[in-house]
């Protein structure tokens, strides 16, 4: 780290991964405000571990794992807090505001409606199923990347993905308007 400040070293290590980390944060939390908070907390923690970070050959997966663990820790705390409150929907559908259509308004509307139904169906999945299906089928993570991120065997990732898709199919089929 000689020759440059800690801040500059830190930025050089983490900035190339910002987009991917923010996307992960959004897929984990489902809300922009919470994604930004999670991203922020990750950077704070990572800066505190700069000595460790500089010795890691691939900071991206390391940062992703720290973020995932922060999210899980927070979920546990949040679950304890929630013992006092009513259940609520988790995803806000906020991402749908960023839906970019093409030039056919009718087709766009139809597509948006389907995405809204998908959004509602995703809310009904368990966290572990929702996260795996979003990381794999939306973000394009490989099974091995999810295994490293969540620290579960590849076989478990596969079976959870299979069950998550099946549940999603079931929910969307139950909703008579979809198919």
């Amino acid at each position, binding site marked *: 780290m000689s020759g440059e400040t800690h801040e500059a070293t830190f930025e050089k290590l983490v900035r190339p991964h910002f987009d991917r980390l923010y996307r992960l944060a959004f897929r984990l939390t489902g809300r922009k405000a*919470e994604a930004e908070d999670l991203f*922020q*907390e990750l*950077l704070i923690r990572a*800066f505190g571990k700069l000595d460790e970070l500089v010795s890691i050959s691939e900071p991206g997966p390391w940062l992703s794992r720290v973020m995932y663990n*922060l999210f899980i820790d927070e979920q546990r705390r949040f679950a304890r807090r929630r013992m006092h409150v009513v259940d609520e929907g988790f995803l806000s559908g906020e*991402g749908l505001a960023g839906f970019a259509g093409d030039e056919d308004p009718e087709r766009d509307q139809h597509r948006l409606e389907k*995405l809204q139904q998908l959004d509602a169906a995703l809310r009904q999945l368990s966290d572990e199923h929702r996260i795996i299906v979003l990381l794999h089928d939306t973000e394009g993570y490989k099974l091995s990347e999810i295994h490293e991120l969540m620290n579960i065997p590849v076989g478990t990732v596969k079976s959870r993905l299979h069950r998550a898709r099946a549940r999603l*199919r079931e929910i969307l*089929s139950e909703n008579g308007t979809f198919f």
Partner: protein
Amino acid sequence: MHTQDTDARSDSRDQEILALLKDYPMADASTGFYDQALARATHEGTRRQRNRWIMTGFGSALAAGVVLWLLGGFFLTAPDLPAPDKSIPGIAMTLEEPHTVNLVFASANALDDATLTVTLPDGVELAGFPGQREISWQTSLVEGRNYLPLELIALTPTGGEVLARLEHDNRGRTFRLRVIVS
């Protein structure tokens, strides 16, 4: 034939779900967020190394208003008397617009297993807790400053007082925050 039709329909449905998942959109980060987050991380990370806090999760943005309450040794000995009106800090909110207020508890001692209860006036809600007037959770405070970001939403123009009650070892203290809605 029937089975083939069913299989074909099922395949097509699966393909459609996968195509939708691929297009499932997300909200972009706020403009300038990455730079701000980086600046906060280096500043906050340094501070936390001296004074680690574990009160709440994600840390949250500190850009919004901050209300500082001093616990000091006072927390453990003072009678739980309401503060005179002039000493109550206040925030101004716009109707139906989320407003983050960062409550800062400066504690002279580390406190494990404290209970924090936030009580909201009618017409003010805590984001994520719709319809709840009182929200409690177990927490720990470290010596020094502990942040609690609360995202409040005023649903009526009434306003009122938010009460944050901190209890530890059968002792407690209530802090008051006046909310004015315009």
